[in-house]
Each structure stands twice: as C-alpha cells, then as structure tokens.
C-alpha cells in the first residue's frame, strides 16, 4: 500500500534548535529532522502510527523516515519533512530558470517500511554521495 502525496519542506523550531545546539551529527538532530509529518487521515489510510518507519520516494531518490502525526494539520495529501539532508535527497533537480529548486510541491510516494532503517545525517551523506577521494 502506498500513497501519492505532495512533499513540502521547511524550517521547524526543533530542526533549528537541534542543529544549532548540538550539530547535525547529533541524535537530537536526526530525531527532529528525519521525520515525515503526515495528516492523521493519511496515516490511517496507510496504517502507520507515530514513530513507525516509512519510505518516501520521489523521482530523485528515496529515504527512510519516522512517521510523525502532524500538529499543523489538516493537510491531507501533503507531507512535510523538515529542511535537511533527508528532505533534500528527495527534491527534484532543476530550477525552472529561477535559480530556486522546487523545495515545495515535489510529487512523492509514501509507504510503510517496517524493515527500513533511518540513517543519521552523516550516514545518509556517506551512503548517497560517498567521498571525493
């Protein structure tokens, strides 16, 4: 079972605070940012609960995240992932000649992924991009 959604990304208080206080390598940052905030109705459709692991995929790639019940609902059919390496691994290439990538409105698919593993920021960057040496 998967759900077609629109992905929007952006700042959250916890993303900003955990990034500034303890850095992007910290567990707090991963817990604050590697989350997929979903409308409760969408969670019900997929049969996922708060803290379950979901796979979010776009034409650019896929990542595993913890599902989180949105406290800024209703927004059925739209998921929110805080700005950071997980969200940006899903953002499409191109800027439509504006210089600005489409950080909001990316077509995405969400599905439950109980076997998936949520990587921390460093692991994610290493897995996707490797090193330049």
């Amino acid at each position, binding site marked *: 079972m998967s759900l077609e959604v629109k992905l929007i990304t952006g700042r959250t208080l916890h993303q900003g605070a955990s990034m500034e206080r303890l850095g992007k390598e910290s567990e707090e940052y991963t817990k604050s940012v590697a989350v997929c905030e979903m409308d409760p109705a969408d969670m019900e459709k997929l049969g996922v609960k708060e803290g379950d692991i979901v796979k979010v995929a776009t034409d*650019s790639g896929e990542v595993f995240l913890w599902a989180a019940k*949105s406290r800024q609902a209703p927004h059925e059919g739209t998921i929110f992932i805080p700005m950071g390496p997980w969200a*940006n691994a899903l953002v499409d*290439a191109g800027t439509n000649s504006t*210089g600005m990538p489409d950080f909001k409105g990316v077509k995405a698919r969400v599905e439950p992924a109980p076997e998936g593993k949520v990587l921390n920021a460093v692991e994610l*960057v290493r897995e996707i991009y490797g*090193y*330049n040496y």
Partner: protein
Amino acid sequence: MATITDVICPFCGTLCDDIEVVVNGSKIESARHACKIGNSKFLSINDIPRPIKPLIRENGASREASIDEAIAKAAEILSNSKRALLFGWSSTSCEATAVGIEIAEEIGGLIDGTTTVCHGPTVMAVQYVGLPSVTLGEIKNRADLVIYWGANPMHAHPRHLSRYSIFPRGYFRERGQQDRELIVVDVRKTDTAKIANHFIQVEFGKDYELLSALRMIVNGGELEEEEVAGVPKEKIIELADKMMNCQFGILFFGMGLTMSPGKHRNIDNAISLVKNLNRHTKFSIMPMRGHWNVTGFGEVMTWQTGYPFAVDFSRGYARYNPGETSANDVLQREEVDAVLVVASDPVAHFPRKSVAHLARVPMITIAPHHSLTTELSEIFIPSSMVGIEEEGTAYRMDTVPLFTRKVIDPPQGVLSDVEILKRILEKIREMR
C-alpha cells in the same frame, strides 16, 4: 561572571538586539531573551566540539595542517580553477562578503549566497515591480493588520511576533495585540495560524490565483467564481475588505510563496496587490528573510557588483542571470570545478543532484564547526563565530544594518572569516 547586554542574536533575519549573555570564563552560561534556536546557537559554544586546526584530506584520510598550509592550498585550488563557485555568506559579516567578492572577481569565478535558496525569487520580483516596504519599528508602532502569507514565524522567526508585529505595544497601538488583527494564509494550519484571528487555507500552488482574485476586488472588479484556490468567494471578499479598510497593513511573506510553483511571479503579484492597496490605505510588504545576514549579502553584492546574487565574473565583468549563473544551476549542469563555502552547509540544504556535484569537485569550507559540507570537503578551515566571537556588520530583514557584538574570545589560533579570506586573496594575487 559578566553580563553583556544588547547583544544581537546571530541566527535568523530578525536580528533580535536585546539578548543578555552571561559569560563565565570561556563558557556562556545563558542567553536571556533569546528564542529556543537563538539560545541554542549561543550555548553551542559549550557543547559542540570546536576544531582548532585546519584539516586537509589526502589519500583517503584527513590530516591536521597549519593555517598557512591550508590557506596556500586553498588559494592554489581557487587560482587554478576555471569556474569556481563561492557560496554561502549568510552566517558571516558583510565585511567577509566584501572580501569574498574580491576573490570571485580576481579568479573570474561565480559568487552566490543562500539567497538563491530562500528569497532569490523575491529579489527578482523586486527588480520587476519595486518594494513598498517599511522598517520593523514602524510596524510595531503603527500596524493594525498583520498578514503572514506562506510564512510560519512561530518556527522560523520565533520572536518576530513578540518583538515587532502582534504582541508589542506601539506608539499608536497602545494595547498591543488587542489593537491588531492577525491573518495567516497557508497550505497547513501552522502554529502561527493557530493564534491568528483568521486563517485562510489556500490550495497548494494556487497562491497566484488567490492574490489575483484579491487584486481584482481591490481594483473594483467583481469576482465571478464561487471559489478561488480552495477559498470561498465570501471569505476572499472579507479579506479584501479588511485589507482596504485597515489603517496600516503589513504583508509578511515567506518560503510558501518563493518555493512554490510560480516563485518570483507569486511575489510579483503579492507586491502588486500591496501597491493596489495603497490607493485605499497605507499598506506595506516585507520578505521574512531567514538566514541571519542574508540581507547583508545582497546589500554588499549590490553595491560592489551591481547585482544582488548569482554573479558570474568569468567574462571579466559582473553578469547576473538567475537560472544560468545561480548556484544550483551551475552545479546541476556540472560546470563548476572548485567550490569555496563560507558560513553555510549546502550539502545539508541543496537538492541531491547539486550535492552530487559538490562531492565530485575539490571543496574548501570555512566554518566554525564540522558540518555535512566539511564531510565532503578537501580543505576545512575552522573560523570564529560572527556575532558571538567576532564583531561585524549584519543587516536585519528590513535592511537596517546592525553592528554585532563580540561576547567571548574564539579558541586560540582560530581566525575570523575576514582574516582567512584576506589571506587567501593575498596568496591568490601572489600566484597570478
């Protein structure tokens, strides 16, 4: 212990200037008045390990290097590049940006800032239609109608509402919040929307239509559709009436407009709406600039190169063409052969395809801490934190410049961004 007052917070574009920092030796005990994010930034001095020596990556491993060696190697990479990108600048001072522009000009490179991934479309729209704006002080003293459109300051600018827009008492708004009305337009019922007097939920990607409908009413036209962008006709008429009949209105807008389909055209329409409203009342508009000194980057770029961001010096003079000369475009076209990152973390905040190219080319990063960008960098030169360990000029979101204070010494041996950049520039000039 010493208390330093009137310190300027170095996190977001609100530049709160009332922070009281309590310093105990080399530690910061507290940052009174700061929001959760600002407080975290000050206290990070105690918690995040600070690299002191530069790191150079060679043969699959990082090794410590002297500052002289790191600067010489950085200068060599930049000097030998055919199309270098100099990126970042929003978390450093205007003085550092000024030196960065000199380096870009010297090597015929590209220079772009985080503007390109926040309010770049706003800057483009302002070039089309201007910007009827004000200072935050005027808003505090006069505004009786405050609109946040596609912006969620409760998360991104946590003290914006309490310092400038809704809660403070102003000269003409003596009762503070009771004398003002707050309207939020967003695709989600955000935490800012929850405290608003009115929330208008717009369909994703339809902001342009809703702005056009409002302009039609404000300009005396009649709305024929029963619903626009998911908003019922009567609600749109009510919103237009509120806008036309306030005494002093302000429209703050954020990434909800700049990053959604339409981008700069959304902003063009929002600014045009505000211009139309000025036939009825006094109304202003302001972008919610996010990264700390991102406004200052644009100011320095404009007075030194004539253009606000995305400038290409490869022809020996400044060229500006967002979509062609902007950071993500040159990275995704794989044109860039070297990158200098200052006070930013594009590996965390750029789309996958852009980061894939960053990982392929030699990258030099100047920043106070390890980051995902330093993970992929060939050279990492640690620097002091502007606004905490270093003075410097920064611009608030309303383009008011403020000189930031130093509250604590940087770790011994760690230089400022300005000094590191000046020494790289000097070395490049020696090589050429």
